[in-house]
């Protein structure tokens, strides 16, 4: 079983990386009004039900993969 965790900076929080990316896009002539930079974590499990995996992923996110003060996360599980 595979899973992908998407971690994003919370909305409203200054994201200097995103701002740098937006400025660079601007220099290239692309007109992006806003850019936010997050993180993708691909994981592989063995022998768990989707429900069980999802519960475990939630705990991973709370304890390590994301910092709830500044980040939100989304979990995607694939067989």
């Amino acid at each position, binding site marked *: 079983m595979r899973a992908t965790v998407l971690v994003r900076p919370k909305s409203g*929080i*200054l994201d*200097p*990386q995103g*701002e*740098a990316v937006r400025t660079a896009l601007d220099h290239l002539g692309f007109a992006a009004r806003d850019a936010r930079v997050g993180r993708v974590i691909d994981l592989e499990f063995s022998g768990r039900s989707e429900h069980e995996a999802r519960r475990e992923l939630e705990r991973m996110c709370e304890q*390590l*993969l994301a*910092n709830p*003060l*500044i980040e939100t996360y989304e979990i995607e599980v694939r067989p």
Partner: protein
Amino acid sequence: MIRPMPERRPRIAVVVFPGSNDERDAAWALGALGADAELVWHADEELPEVEGVLLPGGFSYGDYLRCGAIARFAPIMAKIRRFAEDGGPVLGICNGFQILCEAGFLPGVLRPNASLAFVCRDVRIRVERTDVRITGRCTEGQVLTIPVKCGEGAWYADDLLVARLEAAGQILFRYEGDNPTGAVGDVAGVCNAEGNVVGLMPHPEHAVDPLLGSADGGLLLAGLVDAALARLLVSV
């Protein structure tokens, strides 16, 4: 009045993670200020008999994921948590501050500098409170000159948390004038509710001699030595 004399100098553990790089400056400074510093490896299961703990600057575990996020799982951290819960003085500097925040010893989190640039220069910080031991050698409102050197030093907490910390007196240091990182509320350092755990971004261990441009950092490290000495005197 007869003051009790300890049989030895207070001992302070300086914890070394893979990627720490300020442990020797910190150990040297503590030695010069009257403590015996002991370098302790992150993978050690036990904390030696010490009366203080210092988490130095650097790039523990390559700053992977988020600064300090991995270091908090080091075996030694469980023992440091117990030490802190027992009232033992703990000081985190720069990466050490990031680790203490990620591990939940201290409130808030450190984010990339608003400028996205690595900042390395002397800054001025104002001491907001002097009734915790680590700032006990300072006067209230005293402005210290101490260098910062960090890429991810912008302390962040949401408005609600900042208000709560201000009310509780947990904002210990603020940048004076120039805020080098874009930290919320110009916060340069905070402490826990009990005041025995302190973290700050600037590096007091790099400012302990006028030859280095400032000796102001010595005041804070001497405060840590004072706290360790007080613990040693209680324990004998």
